[in-house]
């Protein structure tokens, strides 16, 4: 470890606790309080990755969430490895293992580096322009592009970590733990408001906490000492919650915010055990204070991306906070005063500052005077035209700027250095403000977009640097003044502080600094993560892109995981300069959540595995499990799919079950069908309006099948409704449609027909349904309920009876979805398993066979009964389904009626439901397969297969399909083209079995 890069005295790093970690397999040491980035810099490691496109060596450039280069993969465990993590944000812990991304075979020798020499061939839009043709080659290109472009690797095993969600309600949410956030939180909490302070760092105090210089004083204390005292007081306030290591990801309307709280990412593996890793806070607050600060801008000049080139304020933080020297011979390059603060800090810590290059012609402030006293050389009105050094900057080339700043004059001066600090001014972090709907305004004198106070959504305020105040006195005074109004406060202690600080007097801004070379021969990087340069932006403009949103996408500027935190302002500036537009008119690109990346774990929280969705089980579920059912998911329901015996395949089981149901008896758990209880004197009128057929004359004790349409005339749901009493009906719906049907019915009752006296109650869960079918079903029911009259006269098809099984009340409907003589027994769910077992017991002598959804589907297909959602898809009318018989033509109106004779719905070439038989009766079609008339190209698609089975009862393959003009095509041969053969089919009637319905009364 190069100890000589650490300064010994430091308040923030605990040098008594040494921490070992690995970077790219090499064992290194740091101290408690370090980030991975500060520990690497202390080990003299700047080179941490390769750039995205040109694979240029890149180093740590910042100290925060805006970091574009130092993006690493953390951890090796295939379940826990974390890609795309910013080294500047990872707190060092014992055993941390991190790897460079986007380089192969190693960061020091990267084969992709050849792209740097090919860069004249890789302009903006290169991929779009080059890999377009021939289209069939895309698969080949894609492999290489994705392979070389990878930013980190996803975990390959399920995440073992725990994540959590928490709802938070507060009066005031303060975002940002810097000086303005601290003052806001303190003022709010002292007023007695329930306040939460969110801070993305592990410590409070922002950059002021390490601002230790006589220039910056508050009430005669240095600003850091004063702030430390404020923080100590703050921590004692009971109605204030401080969330450190927490980052607000999104600010939605109505003051709803999402924040990610990191709970264990800074701990070693054994300290993390059984703790929640990250928590998503879902915050609803009355008021929001945005105090998210500002980030420093880089400067855009030739070769501004070499390792060792770091934001000037970050160099200051590394020396003042972490006690780490980012170099031994540092130069600074700036357009403002803040680099001078860095120079003072470096000088105080004994780091040599060779030269400060300032593009301004003058600078006279307290800061510049102090620098001049130290003897550090300031070159005013100069710029850097080039930097040298491949894996680390080793020298800079400096030339004088012309008066207008558009070109350079004079001779080149070269300075050696091992680190260059750059500062292009400050950008307020307005992301959250704009996410919430706020609009920005442009301040010309220092080129910043700041919140427009007239276009700020209500109940929020921006303060401090995020509101465009960059100097200590402005930050404090304006924060206190505005918070006082925002929270309606009385006089407070912060109103008349004695604040001393330096004031910046001169400003000069040049978005793209000139070089002594033509721009085509330079590499002035804008977006360091996505490798786009100022040249790319200019090229995009030449090629006709005008909108800043288009320029962004074409050049990919600002589209990396850092979302252009460093690059966006310069891209805008260069576009404005090149097109002669005012930046305020140009506007910004859209800021979208999340502000910093979230893990998927945080987003899903506990909703993984069995908690991903609700699971609904019927009251008979345990019996199905005991009897080895295979289950199918139908919506949230677990339904028995088939009941394999002795190692049967699904096909074998279904063939056996289907045959048994027709030859003797089968039993189905139909409890999942939706059941709606309808009561009230207008139910029959209501049914008339919602079903296509007539309901007024349905007698008590009778059942009727109904088809429900949408207002557009398309089939929506179907089911049998039974009249239990004068004003009492029970409706069944499809399993999947139950909730939607109930909502739709409620909608009509509440909004269109409030005059109807109808009450709807869902009883799907309260009642369980078992359906016994087959020629022996009558005998089985007779055994269970000997007293019941089961004669066709006493209990005909489509009728219902109340009865008792032992002492259990039951409703028995004689209805059939298989075409067999069948009974549906409905009992209160608590008794269902018992009644089911009685049916099984009673049916034993008849080989009663439990069957699942697959056999049910097969049996109904033999009869040509549709399943809404399988044979229909929301584009078929009753007539398309050849169900014209169910349309009550005499009825004046019902939902969807008018749509049945729109010009589109009466077309004769609509797709219509038909039956299909394969020429080879053994050939079973695939559901979804296309139907065509000829194979001559271009091939016209006539329709597709909706249901297909091998029928054991007919001993041949059967299918249902929708075919254009299908009604007229009976007997026609069509082709089903498959991958390696063509299947010939014949269109037939959709009813394959027992066309005369003799078996219903068998």
């Amino acid at each position: 470890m190069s100890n000589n890069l650490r300064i010994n005295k430091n308040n923030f790093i605990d040098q008594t606790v040494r921490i070992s970690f690995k970077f790219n397999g090499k064992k290194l040491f740091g101290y408690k309080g370090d980030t991975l980035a500060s520990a690497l810099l202390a080990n003299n490691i700047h080179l941490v990755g390769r750039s995205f496109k040109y694979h240029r060596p890149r180093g740590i450039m910042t100290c925060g969430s805006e970091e574009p280069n130092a993006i690493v993969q953390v951890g090796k465990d295939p379940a826990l490895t974390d890609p795309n993590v910013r080294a500047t944000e990872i707190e060092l812990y014992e055993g941390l293992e991190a790897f460079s991304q986007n380089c192969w075979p190693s960061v020091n020798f990267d084969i992709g580096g050849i792209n740097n020499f090919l860069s004249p061939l890789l302009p903006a839009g290169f991929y779009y322009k080059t890999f377009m043709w021939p289209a069939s080659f895309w698969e080949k290109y894609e492999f290489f592009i994705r392979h070389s472009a990878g930013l980190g690797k996803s975990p390959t095993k399920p995440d073992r970590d725990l994540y959590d969600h928490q709802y938070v309600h507060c009066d005031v949410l303060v975002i940002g733990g810097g000086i303005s956030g601290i003052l806001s939180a303190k003022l709010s909490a002292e007023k007695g408001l329930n306040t939460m302070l969110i801070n993305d760092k592990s410590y409070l105090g922002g950059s002021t906490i390490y601002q230790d210089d006589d220039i910056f004083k508050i009430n005669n204390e240095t600003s850091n000492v004063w702030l430390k005292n404020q923080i100590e007081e703050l921590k004692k306030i009971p109605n204030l919650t401080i969330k450190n290591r927490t980052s607000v990801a999104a600010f939605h309307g109505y003051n709803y915010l999402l924040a990610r709280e990191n709970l264990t990412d800074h701990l070693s593996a054994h300290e993390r055990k059984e703790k929640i890793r990250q928590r998503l806070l879902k915050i609803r607050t009355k008021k929001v204070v945005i105090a998210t600060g500002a980030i420093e801008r880089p400067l855009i000049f030739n070769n501004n991306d070499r390792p060792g080139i770091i934001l000037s304020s970050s160099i200051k933080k590394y020396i003042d906070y972490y006690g780490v020297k980012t170099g031994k011979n540092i130069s600074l390059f700036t357009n403002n005063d803040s680099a001078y603060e860095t120079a003072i800090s470096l000088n105080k810590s004994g780091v040599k500052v060779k030269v400060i290059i300032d593009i301004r012609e003058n600078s006279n402030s307290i800061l510049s005077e102090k620098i001049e006293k130290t003897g550090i050389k300031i070159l005013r009105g100069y710029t850097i035209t080039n930097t040298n050094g491949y894996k680390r900057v080793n020298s800079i080339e400096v030339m004088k700027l012309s008066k207008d700043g558009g070109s350079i004059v004079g001779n080149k001066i070269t300075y050696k250095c091992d680190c260059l600090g750059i500062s292009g001014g400050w950008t307020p972090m307005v992301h959250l403000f704009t996410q919430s709907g706020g609009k920005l305004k442009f301040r010309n004198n220092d080129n910043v977009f700041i919140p427009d106070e007239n276009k700020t959504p209500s109940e929020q305020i921006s303060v401090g640097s995020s509101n465009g105040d960059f100097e200590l006195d402005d930050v404090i005074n304006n924060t206190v003044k505005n918070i006082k109004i925002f929270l309606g406060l009385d006089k407070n202690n912060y109103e008349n502080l004695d604040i001393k600080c330096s004031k910046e007097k001169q400003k000069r801004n040049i978005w793209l600094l000139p070089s002594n070379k033509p721009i085509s021969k330079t590499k002035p990087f804008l977006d360091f993560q996505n490798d786009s340069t100022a040249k790319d932006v200019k090229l995009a403009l030449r090629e006709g892109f005008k909108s800043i949103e288009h320029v962004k996408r074409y050049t990919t500027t600002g589209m990396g995981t850092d979302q252009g935190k460093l690059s966006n302002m310069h891209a805008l500036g260069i576009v404005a300069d090149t097109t002669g537009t005012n930046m305020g008119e140009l506007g910004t690109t859209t800021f979208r959540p999340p502000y910093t990346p979230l893990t998927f774990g945080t987003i899903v929280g506990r909703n993984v595995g069995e908690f991903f969705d609700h699971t609904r089980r019927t009251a008979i579920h345990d019996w199905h499990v005991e009897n080895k059912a295979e289950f199918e998911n139908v919506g949230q329901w677990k339904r028995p799919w088939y009941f394999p015996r002795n190692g049967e395949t699904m096909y074998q089981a279904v063939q056996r079950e289907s045959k048994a149901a027709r030859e003797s008896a089968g039993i189905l758990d139909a409890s999942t069908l939706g059941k709606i209880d309808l009561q009230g004197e207008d139910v029959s009128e209501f049914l008339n309006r919602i079903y296509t057929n007539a309901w007024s004359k349905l007698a008590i004790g009778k059942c009727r099948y109904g088809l429900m349409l949408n207002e557009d005339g398309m089939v929506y749901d179907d089911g049998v409704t039974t009249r239990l009493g004068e004003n009492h009906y029970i409706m069944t719906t499809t399993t999947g449609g139950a909730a939607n049907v109930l909502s739709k019915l409620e909608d009509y009752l509440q909004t269109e027909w409030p005059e109807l006296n109808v009450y709807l109650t869902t009883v799907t869960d309260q009642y369980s349904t078992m359906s016994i079918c087959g020629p022996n079903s009558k005998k089985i029911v007779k055994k269970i309920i000997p007293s019941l009259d089961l004669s066709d006269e006493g209990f005909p098809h489509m009728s219902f009876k109340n009865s008792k099984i032992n002492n259990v009340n039951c409703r028995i409907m004689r209805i059939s979805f298989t075409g067999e003589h069948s009974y549906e027994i409905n009992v209160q769910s608590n008794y269902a398993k018992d009644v089911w077992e009685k049916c099984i017991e009673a049916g034993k002598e008849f080989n009663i066979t439990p069957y699942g959804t697959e056999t049910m589907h097969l049996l109904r297909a033999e009869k040509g009964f549709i399943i809404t959602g399988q044979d229909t898809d929301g584009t078929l009318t009753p007539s398309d389904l050849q169900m014209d018989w169910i349309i009550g033509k005499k009825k004046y109106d019902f939902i969807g009626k008018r749509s049945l004779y729109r010009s589109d719905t009466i077309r004769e070439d609509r797709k219509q439901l038909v039956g299909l038989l394969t020429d080879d009766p053994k050939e079973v079609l695939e559901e979804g397969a296309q139907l065509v008339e000829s194979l001559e190209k271009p091939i016209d698609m006539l329709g597709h297969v909706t249901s297909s089975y091998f029928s054991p009862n007919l001993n041949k393959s059967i299918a249902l399909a929708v075919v254009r003009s299908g009604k007229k095509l009976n007997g026609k041969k069509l082709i089903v083209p498959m991958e390696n053969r063509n299947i010939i089919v014949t269109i037939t009637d959709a009813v394959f079995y027992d066309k005369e319905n003799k078996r219903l009364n068998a």
Partner: protein
Amino acid sequence: MFIINCPYCGERDQTEFSCGGEAHIERPKQPTELSDDQWAEYLFMRKNIKGIQFERWNHIHGCRKWFNVVRDTSNDKIHAVYKMGERPPIK
């Protein structure tokens, strides 16, 4: 995500509600007497305004009641909430 003041339950999170589209589109009393164009007007044509829009909402995970909401679609600000059958309190 906004907060809706259900006229039956009070203020609740948007996740409890579902939106039923534009309000005050009455189902024609005599659909059979309408031309295809008139019926299509009822069936398909919606305003989709940027600005003040009158909408139907359902407190689907609450009291299941339908009601009307006046919402500014450009900023989600809700200007009024009123029951089915009531006149809009603002124009």
